[in-house]
């Protein structure tokens, strides 16, 4: 709306002073966006290309640089068990974390969206863990998870369960990390909450006139209307799973027996512990490709399950063809 309004307002004045506009139109805009252009070239595009280049080299931080073609990639796939271990750990983590993260965040958002008193206070309580540093979060959870003195095992002992030494247990350490990560779900919850608040009330009214109960309304109105938000959160969760490093470094150091040796940690150690820059760049590019293809798959599949407001009003069939996905105003 703002844009059409601006367009109309700007038009006559632009016609009044064509010469000035033409003379200044040239360089000035580029001067304003120059900081970004420079930063993009030096800190993003340059490094992106350079990391692709060095992934084809044996490139130690000091010493001789040597072109080895696809050598790094070949070594990764055929000659490095740690690569497969770390990839497996990350995929296992993602398989647990991504769905749980969405369920928890959406569940809390739905609770907060009910008409209750003090919902701002509850919202704050759910969001506060997301405000503090990842280091603080890790320190708190390493104490909560302590096998002998931790508060978690105390609660479990109340219901007669002898809890494991969470972070040093091969079976439980990854689960422990999923739970600690879920604690910081706040942003996702807020995004869902905004999505829920954006659903027009009249949809529920007409649904209930048509005789739909609360549960039916949830599945026929709420869920379809927030599928775009679910898509967004799904993709950010997947990327977050692949970038999980802080918790691994601080809670377990990748152990016990590599049970929490995340892919990001593998990459980090190759670069900054063993200083194999070229190899680590190859690791990073492989991760980039995985994340890109997962995102692509999610996007492609979304044509079947994501519902965009507005497509219905024109022609319900268009949704299936993946067309007409502009918001009507």
């Amino acid at each position, binding site marked *: 709306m703002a844009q059409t309004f601006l367009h109309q307002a700007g038009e006559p004045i632009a016609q009044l002073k064509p010469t000035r506009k033409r003379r200044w139109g040239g360089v000035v805009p580029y001067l304003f966006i120059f900081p970004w252009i420079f930063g993009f070239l030096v800190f993003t595009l340059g490094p992106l290309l350079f990391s692709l280049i060095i992934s084809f080299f044996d490139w130690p931080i000091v010493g001789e640089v040597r072109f080895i073609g696809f050598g790094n990639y070949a070594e990764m796939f055929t000659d490095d068990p740690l690569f497969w271990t770390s990839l497996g750990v990350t995929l296992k983590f993602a398989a647990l974390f991504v769905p749980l993260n969405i369920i928890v965040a959406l569940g809390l958002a739905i609770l907060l969206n009910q008409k209750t008193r003090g*919902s701002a206070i509850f919202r704050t309580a759910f969001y506060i863990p997301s405000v503090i540093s990842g280091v603080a979060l*890790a320190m708190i959870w390493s104490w909560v998870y302590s096998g002998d003195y931790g508060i978690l095992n105390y609660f479990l002992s109340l219901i007669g369960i002898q809890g494991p030494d969470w972070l040093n247990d091969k079976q439980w350490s990854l689960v422990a990390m999923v739970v600690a990560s879920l604690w910081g779900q706040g942003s996702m919850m807020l995004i869902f909450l*905004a*999505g829920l608040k954006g659903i027009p009330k009249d949809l529920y009214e007409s649904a209930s006139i048509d005789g739909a109960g609360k549960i039916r309304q949830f599945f026929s109105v709420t869920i379809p209307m927030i599928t775009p938000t679910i898509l967004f959160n799904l993709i950010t969760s997947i990327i977050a799973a692949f970038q999980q490093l802080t918790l691994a470094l601080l809670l377990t150091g990748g152990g016990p027996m590599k049970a929490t040796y995340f892919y990001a940690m593998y990459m980090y150690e190759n670069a900054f512990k063993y200083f194999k820059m070229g190899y680590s760049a190859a690791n990073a590019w492989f991760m980039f490709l995985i994340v890109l293809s997962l995102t692509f798959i999610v996007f492609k599949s979304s044509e079947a399950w994501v519902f965009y407001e507005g497509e219905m009003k024109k022609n319900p069939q268009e949704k299936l063809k993946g067309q007409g996905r502009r918001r009507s105003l």
Partner: protein
Amino acid sequence: MKKILVYVLLLFFSLLFMAPLFWAVTTALKSQSELYLFPPKWIPSVWKFSNFAEAWNIQPFNLFLKNTLLITVLSTLGQLISCTLVAYGFARFQFKGRDFLFLVVLATMMIPWEVTMIPQYMLFNLLEWINTLKPLIVPSFFGSAYFIFLLRQFILTIPRELDEAATIDGASKLTVLTRIIVPLMGPSLILVAVFQMMGCWNDYLGPLIFLNDQTKYTLTLGLSQFKGMFGVDMQSIMAITCLISIPPLTIFFFAQRYIVGGIATTGIKG
């Protein structure tokens, strides 16, 4: 009946989310003898506030605080200046390649940090910036995609007549920005400042990679050093954990309105 269920669930989950924090705070206040008990004691019998001062002196935390403040203040300043300029450029000018470049801005948000991390490290190494605070400050002066996007969206909502009126009065483009646009951008600039300050204060991986020398450490690095340090007790670790969490929590309470709105925007427009 349904109302009661909602309240019970809200209360239950609130307690669940707050319990680890509460446990951290009470641990920070415990005396040595009450630290390792099973069943644990929730409330310490004596509140030892001296734990905070003792923990602070185990490492040079004053120095870490100074470094952290320096990085946080300068990089926030950098983001505010650079992102405002760039966002204004994208919002208020017609120029060749604008829409394409803006698409590139949005696309850079998708690139994982890990991919550019190694060349960035090598670049800073070449410039002899490793083990200085520069790698954590200087890039902020060249904008960041998300903030540019946020500010551009905001500038688009400001009526263009205001610019035109000023232009007719002879104001230059830069004057229009500083005198007309910026004063109207209050809420969105606060949002950028808040996000940047929190991100910087809480950052761990940046300092971990770029700083080696203890005199350059930030607070989060100092706290992480406790892990594996011999003879440091849990109450000290929790004391520092609580202390370094106070500034982000304070900012959050004051800026809650902006933050909630800002995060919501990401999801809807993203």
